[in-house]
């Protein structure tokens, strides 16, 4: 319990700093933000209007409090391009990214659990070499390039899947899935590589421990020992690692969405950067980061539920 309270308390400064960093994005633009946003040729009048609009004439703490007040009410400001509320833009894009993230997560978990267990329990066999080799290659491949190769193979040469685009699931489920397969596998394969390596090594460690030897000497079959005993313990660090990967995964989706022309949150960030629409960038980045923080806290809490030893250890440290 003390651990939980402490963990939640430690999240508060993180939330504060994240909000400050997102807020300061516009103020950190070197020179005059209004000039950068509008371009050097903009009239003095237009620049002044932009400064008013961005609230830049107020002292910075006042700007921050105003901004934060809006954020807490779900008001992320308006897009500098067409005045659409940023929260609306984000809500439009969110389903795409959520679908992509869940799909990727499912692919990467499935592959890494199967490959990790097989390769640790059959150490030194061809199946181990194959999966460690693929995993090693996987962590070295830029996944957007993997995506491009998938497009060349499956869309251009085999012609069995579309090269890019998007249809909402509820409009046409089948088309939606065909659009999602390549991006989900391109990102998922890469994400699974790291998890496979991690699960293999923690499982190998468990398999070398005393309780596993005891279980074997009781005459239990290898399958039972691995699945019932060793995997359970090896999964504990695996759960944290996969939770922490959410951050990397969401970052990676920025590029995946660009390669496959998916109208998700990541694409929104990239497009808004291109258009110098900094309020939208701010809102989208804040949303993504809050998701990461929440996921990390949840994982930590789940973690103590799975393994009670952890809260003891942390409160000692």
């Amino acid at each position, binding site marked *: 319990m003390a651990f939980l309270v402490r963990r939640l308390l*430690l999240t508060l*400064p*993180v939330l504060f*700093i*994240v909000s400050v*960093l997102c807020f300061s*994005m516009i103020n*950190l*633009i*070197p020179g005059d933000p209004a000039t*950068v946003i509008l371009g050097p040729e903009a009239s003095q009048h237009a620049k002044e209007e932009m400064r008013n609009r961005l609230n830049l004439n107020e002292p910075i703490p006042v700007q921050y409090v105003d901004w934060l007040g809006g954020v807490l009410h779900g008001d992320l400001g308006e897009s500098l391009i067409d005045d659409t509320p940023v929260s609306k833009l984000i809500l439009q894009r969110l389903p795409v990214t959520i679908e992509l993230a869940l799909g990727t997560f499912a692919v990467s978990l499935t592959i890494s659990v199967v490959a990790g267990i097989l390769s640790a329990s059959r150490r030194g066999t061809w199946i181990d070499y194959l999966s460690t080799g693929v995993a*090693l*290659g996987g*962590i*070295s*491949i*830029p996944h*957007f*390039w993997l995506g*491009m*190769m998938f*497009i*060349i193979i499956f*869309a*251009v040469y085999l012609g069995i899947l579309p*090269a890019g685009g998007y249809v909402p699931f509820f409009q046409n489920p089948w088309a939606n899935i065909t659009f999602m397969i390549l991006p989900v596998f391109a990102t998922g394969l890469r994400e699974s590589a790291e998890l496979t390596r991690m699960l293999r090594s923690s499982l190998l460690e468990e398999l070398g421990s005393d309780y596993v030897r005891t279980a074997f000497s009781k005459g239990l079959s290898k399958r039972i020992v691995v699945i019932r005993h060793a995997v359970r313990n090896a999964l504990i660090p695996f759960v944290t690692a996969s939770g922490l990967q959410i*951050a*990397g*995964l*969401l*970052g*990676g989706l*920025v*590029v995946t969405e*660009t*390669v496959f022309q998916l109208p998700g949150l*990541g694409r929104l*960030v*990239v497009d808004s*950067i*291109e258009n110098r629409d900094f309020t939208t*960038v701010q809102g989208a*980045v804040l949303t*993504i*980061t809050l998701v*990461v*923080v929440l996921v*990390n806290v949840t994982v930590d809490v789940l973690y103590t539920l799975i393994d009670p030893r952890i809260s003891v250890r942390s409160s000692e440290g």
Partner: protein
Amino acid sequence: MSEAVTAEGQQAQAIQPRERRLGTFWRRFRRNKLAVFGLAIVAVLVLTAVFAPMIAPSNPDAKDYALTLRPPGEGGLMGTDALGSYVFSRVVYGARISLESSLISVGIALGVGVPVGLASGYYGGFWDEWIVMRVIDSLQAFPFLILALVIAAILGGGLGWAMVAIGIGFIPAFVRITRAQVLSVRGLDYVDAARAIGTGNTMIMLRHVLPNSLPPLLVQTSLAMGYAIIAEATLSYLGLGAEPGEPSWGSMLFQAQSYLSTAWWMAFFPGMAIFFAVLGFNLLGDGVREALDPRTYD
């Protein structure tokens, strides 16, 4: 006077085991075939970058509009791109940009991360737990690529700022690693002993605590070099790193995107270059880790 002599004598003694340790390290490293393979890849990468003008058959920017989009064979080893430049020459020169930018980003991360981690872990207390570590947590809450992307966007884009952005993105990892090592030795007797004979804090940190952090930092540096190559390619691909015309592997992939259905070689070869470069640094990092890990002692 006599004290100084003793100290020097001690140092001379300390040097020998360190050399022997290096020998042991090298022997163990060499036995790991994958690690040696990684080292070889990195060596090839460095040589390619240094001798690019001698290796590349043509100027990477030379354009021949009569020779656009030719497949490998007809258009040289790796074909030609949409502007009639040889992909092979551009890939060779790309090694320069990749290596240079990852060196600079990792250098920034080391230069900031190590001192901060060292001081924060050594002094500890409120400053460490509530300020430094929470800032690090917050920076790590931003997905790495998004952080780099936003910093590059704020600073104005271009390869130089991309390197800075990637470097900033790496700082948290280096702070954490250094700090963790510092915490593990801070309370040990030899540090207390150094303090007892009147060694100043800065000296203790540099002489007694920092060397202990070097092995994991070395591993992290190698892995970060690999990741920096991917990050630079990604930012350039998204248009926030190298200019589209520059022979960077990432901007080559950006250009290739429009020709996926007609010229696979434009995307395939720069990507393979990234893959091998990153694989090299990953294998090297893993190899160094294993060679340094006392648990894998034979």
